């Protein structure tokens, strides 16, 4: 163990333990997943950084979205994200989840993934090199240290808005809301605020 970090370990042991045990859900989306096998195997051994892929989202706390997100995949991504336990961190990998990338005018591809689930960090590029994943992981450590990787708390707080956006993209969702959304619909509430102003 690094002696310099003993103070941090004593101060917030849970946070430090989280930081060094990132379990990535093995979710294959788009072309970026081709970068992941070399990352997790001996060439770029991701276990040096404490990142290891796991079989199910229920054991994972890191979600790498590796490429373009079609409307059908968005449904699977939301379901996977909601099954992960907290604290959970999401990283968009490649330019397509950021703003659509080369699929910016595609009829069936989600353009901004952060409208539907909270994202803690982005890796830009098309494709990013495997080293970029490690840069992202070390950045994520810094964010966790500073309590800035708070996507899951944002998801709790503004769940109504995320759920509304999900329903706008996918139509009616066949699973119940994860958190309480209140009785009023969000759009009604906004209109009420506007009319008061």
């Amino acid at each position, binding site marked *: 163990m690094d002696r310099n970090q003993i103070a941090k370990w004593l101060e917030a042991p849970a946070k430090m333990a989280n930081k060094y045990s990132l379990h990535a859900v093995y979710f294959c989306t788009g072309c970026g997943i081709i970068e992941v096998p070399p990352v997790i195997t001996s060439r770029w051994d991701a276990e040096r950084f404490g990142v290891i892929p796991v079989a199910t989202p229920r054991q994972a706390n890191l979600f790498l979205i590796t490429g373009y997100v079609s*409307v*059908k995949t968005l*449904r699977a991504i939301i379901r996977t994200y909601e099954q992960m336990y907290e604290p959970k961190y999401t990283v968009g990998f490649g330019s397509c989840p950021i703003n659509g990338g080369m699929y*910016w*005018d*595609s*009829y*069936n591809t*989600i*353009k*901004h993934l*952060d*409208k539907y689930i*909270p994202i803690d960090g982005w890796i830009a590029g098309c494709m990013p090199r495997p080293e970029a994943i490690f840069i992202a992981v070390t950045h994520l450590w810094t964010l966790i240290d500073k309590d800035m990787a708070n996507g899951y708390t*944002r998801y709790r707080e*503004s769940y109504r*808005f*995320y759920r509304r*956006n999900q329903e*706008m*993209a*996918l*139509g009616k969702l066949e699973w119940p809301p994860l958190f309480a959304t209140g009785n009023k619909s969000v759009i009604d509430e906004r209109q009420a605020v506007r009319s008061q102003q």
Partner: protein
Amino acid sequence: MSESLKQRLKSTFKDVQVAALKDNRMSVTAQGASVPAILMFLKDAGFDHLALISAVDYIEDNEFEVCYILTCYMQGQDSEGQDLHIILKTRISREGPNFQTVIGIYPNAEPYERELHELFGISFKGHPRLTPLFLERDYKIPPFRKDFDTRKYVKDTFDNIPFV
């Protein structure tokens, strides 16, 4: 390219144009009504693999071109002893596009025809289930047609969703 197969095709079917695209590539253009007969003929000649059914939207001519791409599964095992790829093209009207299914000849045509039904709106008579295959949303115009404006669609749907 196989000369004898070309001759046999021309002698068996009247309104068929056969052209050589490259070595080992042959293009056959036919009327819609004779497509099942030609496919059956080619299957008997050894072309046992339907690789793909695709469509092209010729919006100026107000027509769709449906293409059947055939190969021999066993190379050099067809009756001509050659490794040949055949593309069979036919034109159908763009208004209420309707065509006949070829599932009876090539059973693997089923997903291809479903795909064309979903993306081009071509309905295939006799197909057992023309249900959605890939798409999640409803589109007024099938999205692979030339008059489907993708940028307007993106602006109206995805860009209207606000940031959280």
